């Protein structure tokens, strides 16, 4: 049977597969299968094993990532559509760690709620699988496949609380918006493919003198693709789904969406603009400028008015997306003598570094939110009053995290934010300097609501007078501890993330 099929496809030769390079994905696939079997074969009361299996799988997948990193040369497969380089490895590591921490976050919530445990971990694993593929995708098609692979489980996860109306809304909204964004993006991709005749990013990028890239229709294609990912990273004006979805989804899923799923969107954007569209930086710069300014400003201003802690962090994550996009307003500029891309490396590593730091801190934030909400049973910020008096450790960690997000030294966020500023100012363009000032103003606005949380925790009275200490389950405590240690260590020795981010570059396109 197979032989006849192969015989028909006469010219087909099996592409060389580098198994080592695919090992992280293979480990994840195996874990997915095991998880599925565990769910089928175990009784209801021991479904929790799925959580352990998923967690171990994530960690196991980290092993080949490390061996590949130690091996230290980039591997390319399928004609350059799938590349495992330092950039991909750093981000695969990030996704796996984020996935692992998400599982720790989920264990208690999912076990205690009336949720289908086995399927839950299955979907998380599938989404992480899509993300690890995304980090390596250097081709329009593989990017699209990776995106769908990570998005579809995420749609289901968002609607996990199926018996509540907000849960349904969350899933539905996310799904419809996501599908719409995919359609827009696909249309853009088809335009680009139609014009350049290739889906490979390197080939699209290398058509320097190709007349198509200078045509208006190419610009339409580029903008459509970027708009599609704009939805994914919840950039304003494509952010409407985020707050409702974040609020309606189970909190661990919110953490996952606001961190890992979003980072996957940034990864795709970075690969697209740096490899594929570098020639049209002149179009993308102003587009990104407007997008970033809108995103951070609108996100911040609306966040100021939130009274629900999860919604507040939803808007905060919208605003953070603006910060992350900001350096793209200067990318491709600041070319030094001889056309050396002086600032591109800085832009890339600033964004990667920021996502690394942002992921860790935000997961810490959500760990605290989940721990505290278990006790309070409400998302109202007012209920957090006086947290410091009965849960000093949680309150202090939370303060550390929000100061980190606000970029106040010595918590870890400051250096990442500084690198963003550095990339923006280092472009030596007026757009860049203006962006620097806008970012400065926005940092202060964001501090206003971050501080309001701190103020509630430290300076208000306990609303209901109940000051029995909070019992934090071990997995949540572990996430808080990991994020705290990370925050302090990286805050004092920012080199660690800096080096990682600096090495996380790929061969940029457009051969200048």
């Amino acid at each position, binding site marked *: 049977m197979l032989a006849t099929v192969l015989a028909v496809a006469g010219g087909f030769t099996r592409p060389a597969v580098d198994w080592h390079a695919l090992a992280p994905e293979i480990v994840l696939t195996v874990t997915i299968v095991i998880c599925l079997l565990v769910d089928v074969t175990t009784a209801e009361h021991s479904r929790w094993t799925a959580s352990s299996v998923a967690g171990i799988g994530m960690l196991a997948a980290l092993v080949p990532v490390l061996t590949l990193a130690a091996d230290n040369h980039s591997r390319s497969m399928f004609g350059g559509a799938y590349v495992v380089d330092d950039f991909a490895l750093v981000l695969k590591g990030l996704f796996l760690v984020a996935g692992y921490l998400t599982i720790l976050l989920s264990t208690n919530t999912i076990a205690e709620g009336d949720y289908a445990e086995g399927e839950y971990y299955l979907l998380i694993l599938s989404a992480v699988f899509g993300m690890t593929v995304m980090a390596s995708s250097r081709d329009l098609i593989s990017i699209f496949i990776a995106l769908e692979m990570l998005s579809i489980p995420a749609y289901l996860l968002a609607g996990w609380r199926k018996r509540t109306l907000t849960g349904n809304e969350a899933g539905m909204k996310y799904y419809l918006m996501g599908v719409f964004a995919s359609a827009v993006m696909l249309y853009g991709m088809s335009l680009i493919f139609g014009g350049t005749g290739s889906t490979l990013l390197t080939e699209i990028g290398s058509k320097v003198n190709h007349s198509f890239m200078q045509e208006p229709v190419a610009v339409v294609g580029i903008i459509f693709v970027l708009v599609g990912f704009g939805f994914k990273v919840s950039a304003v004006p494509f952010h409407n789904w985020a707050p409702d979805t974040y609020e309606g989804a189970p909190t661990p899923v919110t953490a996952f969406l606001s961190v890992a799923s979003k980072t996957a969107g940034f990864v795709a954007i970075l690969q697209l603009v740096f490899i594929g569209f570098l020639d049209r930086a002149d179009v993308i710069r102003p587009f990104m400028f407007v997008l970033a300014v809108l995103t951070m400003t609108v996100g911040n201003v609306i966040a100021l008015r939130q009274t629900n802690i999860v919604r507040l962090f939803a808007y905060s994550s919208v605003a953070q997306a603006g910060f992350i996009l900001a350096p793209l307003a200067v990318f491709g500029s600041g070319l030094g003598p001889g056309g050396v891309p002086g600032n591109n490396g800085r832009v890339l590593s600033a964004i990667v570094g920021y996502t690394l730091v942002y992921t860790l801190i935000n997961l810490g934030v959500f760990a605290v939110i989940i721990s505290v909400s278990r006790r309070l049973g409400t998302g109202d910020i007012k209920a957090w009053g006086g947290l410091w008096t009965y849960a000093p450790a949680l309150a202090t960690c939370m303060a550390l995290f929000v*100061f980190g997000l*606000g970029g*106040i*030294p*010595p918590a870890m966020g*400051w*250096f990442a934010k*500084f*690198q963003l*500023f*550095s990339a923006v*100012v*280092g472009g*030596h363009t007026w757009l860049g*300097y203006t962006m*620097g*000032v806008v*970012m*400065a*103003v926005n*940092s*202060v606005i964001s*501090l*206003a609501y971050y*501080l*309001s949380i*701190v*103020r509630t925790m*430290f*300076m208000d009275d306990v609303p209901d007078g109940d000051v029995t200490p909070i019992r934090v389950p071990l997995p949540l405590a572990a996430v808080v501890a990991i994020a705290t240690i990370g925050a302090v260590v990286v805050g004092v020795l*920012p*080199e660690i993330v*800096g*080096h990682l981010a*600096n090495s996380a570059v790929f061969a940029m396109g457009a051969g200048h």
Partner: protein
Amino acid sequence: MKDLLNGWGATLVVFLPLVGAAVMLAIPKSEETLHKLVALATSLAVFVVGIGLMATFDYDKSAKMQFLVDKGWIDIINSRYLVAIDGISLPLIALTIFVVPLVVVYSWNHFPEPHNPKAFLVLMLVLETGMVGTFVAQDLLLFFVFFELVLLPMYFMIGVWGGEQRRYASLKFFLYTAFGSALMIVSILAVYFLSPTVGGQHTFSMIALSHWGGAGLAKGTAVLVFGGFFMGFGIKVPMFPFHTWLPDAHTQAPTQGSVILAAVLLKLGTYGFVRIAIPILPVGARSWAPVIGILAVICIIYGALGCLAQTDMKRLIAFSSVAHMGYVMLGIATLQPWGINAAIFGMVAHGLITGMLFFIAGSVKDRFHTLEIKRLGGLLLQAPRMGWLLAFTCMASLGLPGLAGFWGEFPAILAAYNPAAGLNVALFRTFMVIAALGTVLAAGYLLWLLQRVAFGTPSEEFENVDIPDMHLTDYIAWVPMIIGILVLGFYPNLIFHVTDGAVHHSLRAIAGH
């Protein structure tokens, strides 16, 4: 010993407080006395190390960076752990490590609500690290980290232990300062990228950047970049019109917070001008000098008028801070050595005097439970020692010759007669006249304060209340401050001698024109 100090002195004086804080974190909250002892021991240890530094400092070469340590920190952007002390930073470090132990002693039995000495003292020690770190850092990024580090403990001190309006005041304090810092970071980066590269790398080293002095920069760029620094430091000083956070913060902060805020925190801003903005961007400084001068005299007059309008003793002292920092900024605006020497002297003198005023205000509040001036009166009758100390400190504050305050104000005014070459002489002489009028107003509001609070007879409300005079901790905390005010008043050369060389050195780019 000297070798040890050379290699480790600056680092020790910065990080010892953190070690103390870490030790305290390990001790349970209920061991209050132990916490106080650890905090006191730590701050005294820092003081001892500081004395060691001062004893081994080479005063004949005050322009030279001494106790220099240069280690890699963030190699990827060539930011280094670069700390050193010269004649400009030494007096301010001395002020900081001198004030903190006194505040700890004062706190002994005076912990404001909600008590919790552990958290309060830990924050105080973190604050000390931030303050001293700011004065020793010679790398712009390191400086920035310490500069920001100061915000957090102060925010919590005001917000948790403060008065009625503490939440509003702490938020305002934080946001104002953060806004300035955010713009400052843009300027820091601009300086970094505009500076010439050495071995293919830009530098954050303040020493190297001062040496470069903005050579080859377009004037417009220099002016804009200086503007970012101006926002960062000017808000901290605070300069009119960014001063509005100060009265709120001072009034709402607990006594200890007010003292540290007045004594040291405000100086971070003026120090920034002297250490960073002017030496690195002399061209920008010259363009900004008239603006700074105008704002400085506005501070002087506006602060004084503000004082006259206050009904709350602490708020009055806060406004007097605005006025006094105006003199400091006027001295800086002249861009000539005499003025900047005076400014540094003014910083130290203001730190001691206004710190002392806040101590007394705190004790008055402690005893009368109010600071409303019209409800007070007759302090000299009820608590004569405190009353006399208030009188003494007011005299020092209004610039009575022979006390420390005089040497900060008078030379600054005098320097405005003859500003640096290239500045508008007529304009600065006008400033001089206005600033001189300001001293009359200062005498007015301080004497009026003294009259209403200390003289006369106690109001009916407090007539029959027993008001205890100074406690033992008050003596221990205040006597050194008083001695400091006297000594500096009699022998101002103690500071001028230290700063002069370094100031001349830092101004050579301006003097050269």
